[in-house]
């Protein structure tokens, strides 16, 4: 582990909060606001094919026509007229780490990304503001036919048709206002294709860094795991804190083929001025398996509910997530699942912690359509209140349209027991450490699903939050 990663272990936020000052000489920044002109400018920057340019304009029109939902956290502090939709370094994306501009490289070095790549990843994509700055895949993984690249590059390859037929077909611009916005100004992100029967033994990772103040990040991740293939994809995100609102409205579209398996893990640690209005959706074919592992720690405001459509018979989904809402945060998170196929199974296991006035809301939907005979769904959500100035709300919904289904739901809200704290203190721990240990234990079902390095990072984030940094 690098020195900087060790610094995180010692409860030091500096790695996340490090600001690389962006200057006009090195960075191109689109003027704030969202107009047809800005959308066309993004399109021009991306050198879009014609269909994509038209698509962006259609999305902008939809965006202007749609309202924000009436059920979520307030987004009053988000003014699109003060958000730049596109910021990039003037250097092009690199395939070699040495060629990445020094300032950006420093930031990612501090976050430990190159180290992780060397030690435990099959490939890495690093996005800085609106563009990928680095993308690499190990030779042996590429030799298996696995494609891991940015979408813009892939659009100019034999995979162009595949992208066109999948891009925003699962998450459509009419889904909600933020998806329309995403469609209009998306930039960066990754395209992954795992061919039939290929099992990628170690994970691929994308790391998203939004460094610029008053900017938006709208990356698009498109992953296709073909029949019988297997992939673990990890997503990390962070940003330094500014006094102005930043916006993240990414889109993740996942296509899991017959008998395939995809695990999608996220450790989200956006800074606390971030509006994280992100959308993720997976569709799973026969006997396919979709696994979500999600840790939400950062952001000022979050709307995040990864959705799975269990289309194929006997397809499965498992969601394991934790949300830690601290001071000034309103994190509205959860999961959605739609059962369509026969014998489909879903398990949602969610944990939420609220502290220092934070608002943590667990929100979910389980829909069992009439075709989903023999479907089974199980939802469990636990919320932990660490004081009485915070909120923990649980708002789960179920819509069941067949008798031949089995749905179970349980939820609990409570506090750390005094007895447990007393016991640990009698063993020599301070009250703060005792509580941190109990919270780590509460989060254990999530951290045990992550690769070791990420579980360590998640536990460090919990320590950071518990210590009030």
């Amino acid at each position, binding site marked *: 582990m690098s020195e900087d990663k060790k610094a995180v272990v010692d409860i030091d936020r500096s790695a996340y909060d490090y600001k690389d000052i962006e200057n006009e000489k090195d960075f191109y920044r689109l003027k704030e606001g969202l107009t047809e002109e800005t959308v066309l400018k993004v399109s021009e920057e991306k050198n879009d094919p014609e269909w994509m340019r038209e698509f962006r304009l259609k999305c902008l029109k939809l965006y202007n026509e749609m309202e924000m939902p009436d059920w979520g956290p307030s987004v009053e502090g988000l003014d699109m007229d003060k958000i730049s939709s596109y910021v990039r370094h003037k250097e092009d994306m690199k395939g070699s780490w040495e060629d990445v501009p020094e300032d950006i490289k420093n930031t990612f070095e501090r976050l430990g990304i190159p180290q992780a790549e060397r030690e435990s990843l099959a490939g890495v994509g690093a996005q800085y503001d609106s563009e990928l700055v680095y993308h690499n895949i190990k030779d042996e993984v590429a030799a298996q036919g696995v494609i891991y690249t940015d979408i813009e590059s892939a659009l100019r390859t034999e995979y162009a048709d595949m992208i066109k037929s999948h891009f925003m077909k699962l998450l459509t611009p009419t889904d909600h206002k933020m998806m329309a916005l995403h469609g209009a100004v998306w930039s960066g992100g990754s395209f992954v294709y795992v061919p039939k029967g290929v099992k990628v033994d170690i994970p691929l990772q994308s790391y998203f860094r939004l460094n610029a103040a008053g900017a938006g990040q709208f990356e698009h991740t498109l992953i296709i795991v073909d029949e019988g293939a297997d992939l673990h994809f990890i997503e990390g995100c962070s940003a330094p804190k500014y006094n102005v609102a930043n916006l993240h409205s990414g889109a993740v579209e996942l296509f899991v083929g017959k008998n395939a398996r995809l695990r999608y893990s996220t450790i989200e640690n956006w800074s606390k001025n971030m509006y994280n209005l992100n959308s993720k959706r997976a569709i799973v074919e026969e006997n396919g398996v979709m696994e979500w592992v999600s840790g939400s720690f950062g952001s000022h405001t979050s709307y995040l509910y990864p959705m799975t459509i269990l289309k194929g018979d006997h397809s499965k989904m498992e969601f394991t997530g934790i949300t830690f809402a601290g001071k000034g945060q309103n994190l509205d998170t959860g999961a959605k699942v739609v059962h369509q196929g026969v014998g489909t199974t879903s398990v949602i296991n969610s944990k939420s912690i609220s502290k220092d006035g934070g608002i943590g809301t667990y929100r979910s939907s389980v829909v069992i359509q009439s075709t989903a005979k023999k479907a089974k769904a199980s939802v469990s959500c636990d919320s932990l209140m660490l004081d009485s100035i915070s909120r923990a709300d649980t708002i789960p919904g179920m819509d069941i349209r067949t008798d031949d*289904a*089995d749905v179970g739901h349980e939820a609990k809200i409570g506090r750390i027991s005094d007895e447990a704290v007393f016991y640990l203190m009698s063993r020599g721990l301070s009250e703060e450490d005792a509580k941190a240990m109990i919270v780590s234990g509460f989060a254990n079902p999530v951290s045990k699903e992550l690769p070791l390095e990420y579980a360590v990072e998640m536990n460090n984030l919990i320590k950071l939050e518990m210590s009030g940094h």
Partner: protein
Amino acid sequence: MNKNLDMRVNVLPALTYNFLHVNDSKIKEDGIGIELLNTPDAENVPDGVTVTRRVSYKEAGKLFEDNKKRILVDAGVPGVPNGDTSRRDDAQAVRTGMGIDIENLMLENGITTDVFTAEEGVKTKEPIIIRYNLNDGEGSLTSQVIHAKKDSEITIIMDYTSERNASGFHGISTRLLAEEGAKINLIKTQTLGDGFIHFDDIGGACFKKGAINVVSLELGAKKSWTGCYINLCEDETEFISNQGYLVKDTHSLDINYVADQRGKKTNVLMNVKGVLMDKAQKTYRGTLDFKSGSSASVGDEQEDTLLLSPDVINRSMPVILCQEEDVEGRHGATIGQLGEDLLFYINSRGIDEQEAKRLMVRAKLDSVARLIPDPEIAEKVQYYISTIV
């Protein structure tokens, strides 16, 4: 009079995804005939309980207006859930499950209210019974206030019934106030005909150590809405509810129960058990709302739904809102058909599948029907269930 109804009711305390269609419900019915505007005579009124007949809805509501500050006390940290809808019903001195549109309907139509008052210290054993025997084509819109003064206890059964094939309209609003140490037991049984449109709106508040106990069986009618909002505004208050329902044919039932836990050491248990058959639809919203200051409170909400047809639609929203650290909130839901193991066991005892289902439906609903403290009405309800299944 003939009325066109257009009301938004049963609004979820904290809104969620619109695609689930659970955020509220609409009552939109044209040409509803309403002739009966007074509560029928109550039977079995014991000494120590006074009944004041035909008070205006507004006048009867003065009891709550006078205590509004006490009922809606908010001693804690301000804060609302995402998608909060509470401001909508701010004008209600005592909030009701179905909300302000019902109150407005009552006020606009000059509905009278019968006020039942249990005097201080009076504890009655026998239930007061109010029977609504509605004829085909009849419409009824009535209101009651039940006021249990300090250390009293009152039990009231309201039974709404008609011929099985009858049509009509039945709307009712019942407001409750349990003062210090008082207890209100309210039992409502509904076996209206298959053409009836029916709503039942309850709102109540408990002062220190006060308790409200609601038993409800919704078994008939074509379209039903029920709502109940109990405000546990002071310490050591309690709300226990046991609901049972049976929805069949193309009928629908829409429920909104809310326990607003404000006092310390409040206790809530909400049980709901039901059966959906044929092409029936049901939406259940149940909310435990632990307000700031409700320390040492407990809330438990359990839903058990048996689905007996591939064409039913079941929607459930078991919500917990919490702004207090020192509470225990739980909810659980079990939704599905009879377990294969259970069916196999019953089959192995020589009982076929249809009979096994019948037994289980009756067992589920009988467990609620047994809570009716009048043998004759309990038997009638149990017989009604047996004829349906």
